[in-house]
Every structure is written in C-alpha cells, then in structure tokens.
C-alpha cells in the first residue's frame, strides 16, 4: 500500500501527483487535529476515597487525666476540657483578599458574593471576576470562629476555572487566605467530599456547624448532567485553622 503511490506518481505525471499529494496532506492534517483534540481533553479530578476525612474540626477532647501530658488535638487549643474555650488562633473579622493553595497550584483574588433571589449561593459572573474565588459575605471571614465559606467555578465557557482541581486536595494540604488586615490565616484540609446531587448538599453542615472553631469550606460543582447541560453535584473541601501569619512577622 505504501510504495504504490510513488509508482503512481512516477507513471502518472504532475497533475495526478499533485492531486494525490493534496489528499495526503489533508488526511495528515486531519490526523494531526484529531491528536491535538484528544490531547486537549481536560477532565476535572474527583475526590479520592482516602480524602474522605472527618468534617468536624472540633479538637479531640483530652481526658482530665492526660497520661504524660500528651494532647491529641488537631488544633493547638489551650484547654480542650473547657468546651467554651476558643482556639487561641481565632481572629477578628477581616474580609479575605486572596487565597493560595500550593498543592493544586492555585492563587487567586477573592471577591464577595451573596445569595440569588431564589436563595442559592450567588456565583462569580462573566467578566473580570469570573475565574476568581468568592467568599459568601454572610459567613464568618476566614479566621473568625465558625465556618467561612468560599466557592469557585470548576469551569467557564472557555475551559477550566479557578477550582478545576479542587477535588484533588487531600487531608493535610494547606490553604492560605490573606485578609485585608494583612494577616494570613492558614488552614489544613480535614475532609474532601463529593455530593452527587444538589439535594444531597449538606447546607447546615457547611454553613452552620463548628460554630466555635475557625473553619473553612471550599465549594465547587461536580457531576455534569449531559441531558440538562448543568452540573448537578458539588465537591466540598473542609479545612480548619492551624496557623496565623501576621504581616511583617517573618520579615
């Protein structure tokens, strides 16, 4: 098959040769474009089972008679025997300005959003803020006691958006939120969960649990439904405050 065309060219003269060459170039171009298209396919990660974790960031209560004084708390709380004690890291209110998640190479400005008229969480709209992370303005600011809620698009009409790789996070990964008061609240991931449909979205767990502790929830969409043309599920990352960096403290 392969050597035949050349004999054809040799015997058949210029016109036939050109015709064949054009066809060959077209076919090769077609194959090239198909390869490019296949290579350009992007698929968002899904949470790994090992990232399931525990949603509550409440420190493990230390028994009154702690053997050898070993405290097993996920937060460096002063005294877990006092249920009303607040994390010594807890910050006063200050709006978030930017977010950095090294594990997924994310750095973004943070805007504020409210709710849509139908009660759902509003999302960044087309324009310069479309691919930014958004903070739900009625939730605590990051570092304040209670669940601070941030969300971002998984994709836009043009391709991956700011939270495209959110589901790749693992417990232990760090999330740094710099606030307008120039302090940086550093959170550690404790759970990454997938909710197949919006009905399964655990509203009260996300917006109304862990009231006494500075926690963070990062939300994006998941589970695209080809028939409706919409994402019908959500990925939620749960994290808790583990460090605070103050501006100038390390400089």
């Amino acid at each position, binding site marked *: 098959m392969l050597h035949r065309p050349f004999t054809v060219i040799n015997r058949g003269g210029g016109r036939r040769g050109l015709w064949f060459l054009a066809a060959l170039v*077209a076919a090769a171009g077609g194959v090239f474009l198909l390869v490019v298209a296949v290579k*350009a396919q992007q698929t968002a990660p899904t949470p790994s089972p090992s990232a399931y974790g525990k949603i509550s960031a409440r420190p493990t209560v230390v028994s009154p008679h702690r053997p050898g004084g070993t405290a097993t708390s996920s937060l460096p709380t002063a005294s877990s025997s006092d249920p009303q004690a607040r994390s010594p890291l807890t910050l006063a209110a200050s709006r978030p300005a930017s977010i950095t998640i090294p594990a997924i190479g994310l750095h973004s400005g943070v805007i504020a959003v409210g*709710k849509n008229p139908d009660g759902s969480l509003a999302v960044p709209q087309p324009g310069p803020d479309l691919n930014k992370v958004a903070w739900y303005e009625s939730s605590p600011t990051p570092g304040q006691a209670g669940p601070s809620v941030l969300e971002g698009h998984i*994709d836009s009409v043009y391709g991956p958006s700011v939270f495209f790789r959110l589901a790749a996070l693992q417990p232990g990964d760090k999330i740094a939120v710099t606030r307008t008061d120039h302090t940086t609240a550093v959170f550690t991931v404790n759970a990454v969960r997938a909710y197949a449909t919006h009905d399964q979205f655990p509203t009260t767990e996300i917006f109304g649990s862990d009231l006494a502790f500075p926690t963070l929830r990062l939300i994006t969409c998941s589970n695209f439904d080809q028939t409706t043309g919409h994402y019908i599920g*959500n990925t939620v990352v749960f994290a808790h405050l583990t460090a605070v960096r103050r501006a100038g403290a390390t400089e």
Partner: protein
Amino acid sequence: MKTSKRLLLPIAAAAAITAMSPLAYANAGTGASYGATLNPLNHSTGSGMLTLTLNGNVASVTEHWSGLASMFGTGPFSHVQHIHAGGQGMCPTPAADANHDGVVSTTEGAPAYGGIATTLSVTGDTSPAAGTDIKIAPSGASTNYTRTITLSSDAVKAIKGGTAVIVVHGLDPTTLSKKAQGEKSDLVPSLPLAATSPALCGVLTAMPGAPQTGYGSTAGTQDLGLFGLGGGLLAVGALGMVVGRRRTRVGIDSQS
C-alpha cells in the same frame, strides 16, 4: 472541503450552544435553616455565630460567642441577647450614635434592628418581657448556647423575611469613653450604659442552597469543533486518495 464545512458548522454550533447555556439554579434551597455571623459593635472584641432551624414556629437555636466582657463587679457579666424584629434588618453603624458619646446604645440602634421579639435566655421566659432579666441571660466571656424556643408570629415573620437581627448586649465599661462611663443605661436606669449596650450583632439570613459553579466546558468530550475539523479533513483526504488511485488505474488501462 465543502463537505467538511457543511459537517463542521452544525457540530460547532451545537458545541457552542451546549457550552453557553445560562446558569440554572435547579435545586435552590430556601430551606428552614438560618445563620447569623455575630460581629462586634461599639469596639467590643468578641465575635460569634448563631444558627436557627425553624419548624413551624419552633426554633432550634445553637450559638457560640466569645471574647466579651467576663466580669461585672465581682460576679460574671450577664449578656442579655435577643432576636430583634421590626427594623431595617441591619446592624447599626457608628453613625447611629445620636448623642456622640462613642456608644451606639440599644435605643440608638433600634431603627436598624428593631425591637425585641424573642429573648434568648438560658432558661424560663423567652418573651420580650424577659429582655433585660440578667438572671436568666448567658454570662461570662464566652458561651455555647443551645435552646429550643417557641417563637411569636412576629419573630417568625421577621426571620422568614430576612429582617430578624441577633443582638448580644453588655460591654466592658473600661472600653467606653469617660462620658459614656458615667451614663445610665437607656433600658434599665439602675444599670450603667455599658451593661445593656449592644456588643455583638448579626442579621439572621437563610442559609444558601447549593451553588451552580460551572458551565460544563470541561465536562464530557470537549473541542467538538476540532474533532469535526480533524475528522472532516481525514475523510476528505482519504476520499481524495481513493479517487486519485481509481483515476490512475483508468489511465493505466487506456495506455495499454
């Protein structure tokens, strides 16, 4: 090429339509769960959060706050707290300080948050009548509060309408201006102004439903246009080669 263009256009158009579908909020949750982030008023240092789940007129309230004044004289500081209703559904700004003593008193804040609809007491009466009863108010610098309360219809209406405001009262007197330290409470004249002035405030809002944070451009097979163009070119090229070979064969036959 004409064939491929004809094939390509509908494919590209279909892809564009899929990708550009507007956001839909199919499963918007209005829900019966509400939250209020409690932020400091009057230079108080505390903060907190309250959640409320409404079933008919029965509310399950969970609240945490900390960082408030801990002692009043020799005893623990009582912080009366309420669901306010009938105002603008807002927390007052420092501009509400009508007498310029540096403190937005409970009365000065009323246009923003309204009057007392429910008293969030730790036990007993939860009506507005218990609003200044310091004996049944949470006390100390911080609290974890849980209580199930039957609400008045006014309170339920305000909560559903998004105009209910949570206010926690009681300031550390030493944080007040000299002038304000000498003033009497606008609510209970036997107490100093600091004892009853608002320290934390938060508007009670319905918790949002799941957000629609994506357009679908990375879902399923992407770049359908590119696939169409590539496939079209390949088809045209292959066809060209077949036709070309046939013509060549015909040429060979006529020569012999």
